[in-house]
């Protein structure tokens, strides 16, 4: 089945927003996979309830139509059914809550020691990334700004308002800690395929961890729209093999 999907159905995995997209982008981290699985699990109950309620509604409209049933029934109380329609929805809610909480807490938990720390700092209106694991003094050795490529400058094939000049390069299949903060106003660091959406608050550093499972380029946008240019500071994460990451870092350190 997977082979057939790979061969015929999926040509390329979707890591950026596409026109008229309804579903999620394809997952690249276990977290996003969890979020999508939870969404599908909940949808199962949702469809059941939708069908049941619509059936009841249509049935009532049909049977109690004023022409076939001119004298209304005067039932105002029914203990059994009231108990049933209280208990039953609570059980459904519980079945939704258990996996939901499990996922929520597992997202917060940072158990494995990360291999690298990347700091994403929001500015008006660009992002700064600091890779400080390789510093030998307080002088920043590997830091760069990431600006959006304006509409007029974008090349053929680049996504409009999504491409940046300097991408965040991360190693794939590695635990990464991302520290998100802001230097001025509220920002947010969000990449749908990685299942990350973390607010950047000045004076506070939020931590999130990701494990990118496959190499690729992942697109995201600022998700805290509270000013003129938040829409124009996208996020591009490029996951590369460990070896390439190593040479990327050493190239930048020499430069």
């Amino acid at each position, binding site marked *: 089945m997977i082979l057939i999907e790979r061969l015929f159905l999926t040509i390329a995995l979707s890591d950026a927003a596409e026109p008229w997209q309804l579903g999620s982008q394809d997952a690249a981290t276990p977290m996003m996979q969890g979020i999508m699985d939870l969404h599908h699990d909940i949808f199962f109950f949702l469809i059941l309830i939708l069908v049941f309620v619509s059936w009841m509604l249509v049935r009532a409209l049909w049977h109690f139509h004023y022409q076939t049933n001119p004298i209304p029934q005067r039932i105002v109380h029914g203990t059994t059914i009231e108990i049933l329609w209280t208990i039953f929805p609570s059980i459904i809610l519980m079945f939704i809550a258990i996996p939901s909480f499990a996922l929520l807490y597992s997202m917060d938990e*940072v158990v494995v020691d*990360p291999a690298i*720390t990347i700091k994403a700092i929001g500015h008006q209106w660009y992002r700064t990334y600091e890779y400080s*694991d390789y*510093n030998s003094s307080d002088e920043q050795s590997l830091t760069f700004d990431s600006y959006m490529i304006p509409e007029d400058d974008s090349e053929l094939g680049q996504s409009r308002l999504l491409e940046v000049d300097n991408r965040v390069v991360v190693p794939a299949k590695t635990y990464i800690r991302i520290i998100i903060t802001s*230097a001025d106003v509220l920002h947010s660091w969000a990449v749908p395929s990685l299942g990350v959406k973390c607010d950047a608050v000045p004076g506070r*550093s*939020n931590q999130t961890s990701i494990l990118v499972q496959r190499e690729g380029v992942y697109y995201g946008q600022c998700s805290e729209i509270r000013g003129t240019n938040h829409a124009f500071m996208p996020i591009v994460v490029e996951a590369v093999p460990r070896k390439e*990451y190593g040479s990327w870092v050493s190239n930048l350190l020499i430069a």
Partner: protein
Amino acid sequence: MDEIELKTAPVDFRFPTTNQSRHCFTRYIEFHRCVASKGEEAGECDKFAKYYRSLCPGEWVDKWNEQRESGTFAGPL
């Protein structure tokens, strides 16, 4: 070209929350206390320096360094 070592500040169970500002601040203080008691030359303090550099935004470190120089740093050194 020598291989870059992938190593960073470990998970610290004193700071299990999403907000890691105190983690960074504590590591910064730990480093300067270590230097104060053992001297700059001792290599023992280097790991704390590595930790706080990994965890703290550069702007914060610069601000704290300035405050330490002018004697207005708020932390217990």
